[in-house]
């Protein structure tokens, strides 16, 4: 099961978790999940196998972290069949993008520089 989101997070039934006011999001902060979100932030969508190979992690580890992100409403999956093979395409949702950007901004504040 995934790590619960950070303090000050609000979860409405059926809704995704909203990041804390300061933007720091413990769900995203886990190293693999942070790298997944960073990769998805810069591409409209990435195929599961391509993401696995980019990050150099196992299929099961990636699946586990993606489940946590999907459950939180941060990532959505699209299945598509190409050449009789089913592929899973991943993308950040609007909520996920906002949470990731907020988290990165919070990291920049902690480090003491402005983002960008």
């Amino acid at each position, binding site marked *: 099961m995934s790590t619960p989101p950070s303090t000050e997070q609000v979860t409405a039934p059926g809704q995704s978790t909203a990041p804390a006011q300061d933007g*720091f999001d413990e769900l995203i902060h886990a190293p693999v999940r942070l790298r997944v979100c960073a*990769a998805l932030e810069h591409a409209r969508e990435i*195929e599961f196998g*391509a993401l696995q190979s980019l990050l150099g992690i196992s299929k099961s580890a990636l699946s586990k972290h993606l489940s946590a992100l999907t459950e939180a409403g941060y990532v959505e999956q699209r299945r598509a069949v190409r050449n009789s093979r089913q592929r899973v395409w991943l993308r950040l949702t609007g909520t996920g993008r906002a949470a990731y950007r907020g988290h990165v901004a919070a990291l*920049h504040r902690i480090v003491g520089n402005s983002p960008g």
Partner: protein
Amino acid sequence: METHEPISRDEASAALAAAESSRTLVAWASWPTWYWLATGAGLGAASAAILLPNGWELPAGVVLVALLFAVGRTASRVRGICEGCVSTAMTRRESLILYGPAALLAVGSAFAAKAVWWAPIVIAVLVFVLFAGTGLVLGARAARP
């Protein structure tokens, strides 16, 4: 007001570096070699279009742009990143490093052609080498663990 910092400055720095490394991978790694070669050849051909007879430059340019777009789309599909679209995660600085020299040379080609007729051919080769070389080198560097 009390500020709540859930992690140390060093940890935040490391997290930002990890995120940046993911962005670099998406921008540069896993492009097929033929993408850099084909795009470099296309840009080289565009810079030599000045040698075409009058009236042929525009249709040739349109065909080249369509071909470059198709190459980018196919390469994205092969990479498994952004199927059906050309996506780039490059920063402005990286884009400038990749496209800047080729663009400058392509513009210079028009002027050089007035001095020596074969200059655009030399420039086309230079554009190809610069673009493909930069892409291949930076792609390999990004993929390095």
